[in-house]
């Protein structure tokens, strides 16, 4: 099913769609206010982009430097070529430690690798502790947004879910009451966990440390109670030095939610006394993407979600319409690289308005990449027989000025007399969701010629 068809499903609930649109736009406005309050915002973006591009170019050096320094702090570093290898490594570490109850803070990488179903199928309980991720985990669905995983849901739906799963009173939909119920349930799971999994926002090559940003403090609770900490990261998460962190930290939370900084910016250098820290470095297609000059830039993404909040298509179609681990503009670039045929419609979920490029804290030229994907993906399957036939006719006419003028003159006459319901009938995909413009009485060429005279 294409993005457009799934978006149509989302839009059937007009009230939800309106709310979703407004809700994300308010995040965009918060981001704008936060960015405007930083005088050197644009130079920060430039610096962040330059640093990330530098690291990408020198990735083998920074990876081995990071590994060496992390090991010096007592962390164990693992390498995984793909999702399966990643899942096996994590499963092996948990088995070795005898851990059957695991708490996890937000990690889009483990989502990408399908870690939860892998572990659950093998009898290991894994609990997402970020509130939004917990909500979608209980609903057996994937996050619809990388920063706000449950932004597609209304409070009444979450109330009904918690009534069924956590025993909150029927009809309770107050966000504070629901959050407290989740807090109570998750606190017990934190205290009972035998291992804590986290993602990684930044890995510092110079110091061998990893940095995790949360507002809830769930990564911290999940790593201070159980003795085993497993951190999973894509190989693109590196930055050169600790002194580079402020460049990214000043951009990240402001771009994501309009906050100056997340409530907790946690730095881990080696295991805590008596504990263990394992860091899993995952490729899973990243080295392949890096080798493709036109798409490599997508690997500099710091996962703030700003491109989703501003995207007119994302706001009006919902994250699930992308049917992808990472939705929105950046997902539409990353996902076709993973599975081109499954995600072939995503580069078209875009009006090329360029708003995502304008808000991206690392200045990824997303519209350019989406256009490049369109060019590549349409080589094999150019979007249906009707479209192909139409383009053939257009090419014929465009190459012959006289034919073009004749067709135009005919179309103007015919369109004026034919009833609208014929022209905008079911056969015409262009008029789905669009009204036909009024037919002009004269062609542009006629108007131009008259003006010249």
């Amino acid at each position, binding site marked *: 099913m294409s993005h457009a068809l799934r978006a149509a499903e989302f839009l059937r609930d007009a009230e939800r769609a309106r709310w979703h649109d407004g809700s994300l736009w308010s995040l965009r406005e918060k981001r704008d206010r936060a960015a405007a309050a930083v005088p050197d915002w644009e130079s920060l973006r430039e610096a962040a982009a330059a640093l990330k591009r530098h690291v990408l*170019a020198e990735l083998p050096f920074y990876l081995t430097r990071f590994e060496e320094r992390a090991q010096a702090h007592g962390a164990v570093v693992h390498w*995984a070529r793909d999702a399966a290898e990643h899942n096996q490594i994590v499963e092996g570490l948990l088995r070795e430690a005898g851990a059957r109850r695991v708490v996890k803070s937000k990690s889009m990488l483990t989502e990408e690798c399908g870690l939860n179903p892998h572990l659950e199928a093998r009898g290991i309980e894994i609990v997402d502790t*970020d509130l939004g991720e917990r909500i979608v985990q209980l609903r057996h669905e994937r996050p619809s947004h990388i920063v706000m995983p449950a932004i597609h849901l209304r409070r009444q739906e979450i109330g009904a879910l918690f009534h069924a799963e956590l025993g909150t009173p029927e009809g309770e939909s107050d966000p504070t009451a629901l959050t407290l119920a989740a807090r109570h349930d998750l606190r017990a799971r934190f205290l009972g966990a035998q291992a804590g999994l986290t993602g990684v926002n930044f890995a510092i090559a110079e110091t061998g440390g990893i940095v995790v940003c949360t507002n809830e403090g769930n990564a911290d609770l999940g790593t201070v109670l159980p003795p085993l900490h497993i951190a999973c990261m894509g*190989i693109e998460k590196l930055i050169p030095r600790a002194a*580079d962190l*402020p460049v990214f930290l*000043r951009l990240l939370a402001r771009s994501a939610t309009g906050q100056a900084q997340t409530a907790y910016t946690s730095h881990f250098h080696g*295991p805590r006394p008596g504990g263990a820290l394992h860091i899993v470095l995952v490729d899973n297609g990243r080295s392949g993407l890096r080798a493709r000059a036109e798409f490599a830039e997508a690997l500099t993404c710091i996962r703030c979600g700003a491109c989703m909040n501003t995207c007119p298509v994302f706001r009006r179609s919902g994250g699930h319409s992308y049917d992808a681990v990472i939705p929105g503009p950046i997902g539409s670039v990353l996902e076709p690289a993973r599975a081109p045929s499954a995600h072939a419609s995503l580069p078209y979920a875009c009006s090329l308005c360029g708003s995502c490029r304008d808000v991206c804290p690392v200045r990824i030229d997303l519209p350019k990449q989406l256009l490049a994907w369109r060019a590549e993906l349409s080589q094999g399957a150019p979007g249906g027989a009707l479209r192909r036939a139409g383009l053939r006719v257009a090419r014929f006419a465009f190459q012959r000025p006289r034919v073009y003028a004749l067709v135009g003159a005919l179309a103007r006459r015919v369109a004026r007399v034919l009833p609208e319901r014929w022209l905008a009938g079911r056969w015409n995909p262009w008029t789905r969701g669009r009204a036909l413009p009024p037919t002009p009485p004269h062609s542009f060429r006629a108007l131009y010629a008259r003006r010249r005279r």
Partner: protein
Amino acid sequence: MTARDAILRALGGAASASSAPPPVYAPTPDPDADLFARFAASLAAAGGTARALDSAGALAAALRADAHIGAARQLWSSLREVVPRHPEPLRAPHDLASLDVALLRGEWAVAESGAVWWAPRDPLERAAGFLAERVVLVAPRAQLVADLHAAYARLDVGALPYGCFVSGPSKTADIEQALVIGAHGPRALEVWLV
């Protein structure tokens, strides 16, 4: 071939040095700002409260006068001035699950974002900072700096296994973007700059 070798090869092969130095960002400092006012406003926006205290005496008085500290049944204290009240002996971080208040010592405070660098010395102290209902971070006012660039230039992030910039209490807005304080950790954060 190991996974490590395969990944490094796919990236063009291992390299023992970077062919170019990483770019350096030169921040433009905000001059003449009232750092404390800025810090207090940033922290308030993050859901915390800031307080300026003039002297060690003022700190001692504030600690004595604080109603939450006085009423706490269980209390962690990293401060000399206050005697801890937690279960003894402490064997695991889990023993701190019912903490009412944690008094912690912060290092660098950042005016731009209302954050305080906190590097607990052991896992118990680290757990106290997240299990307590209420956290009071006491930091030296002389170590209040304008922005994160200034803070990172002065602190050694890797000196201890764990260090954290704390800015506000634990919070979430995952249900309809409605802000709720106290998602998992502390429901209140106060920063006292002495």
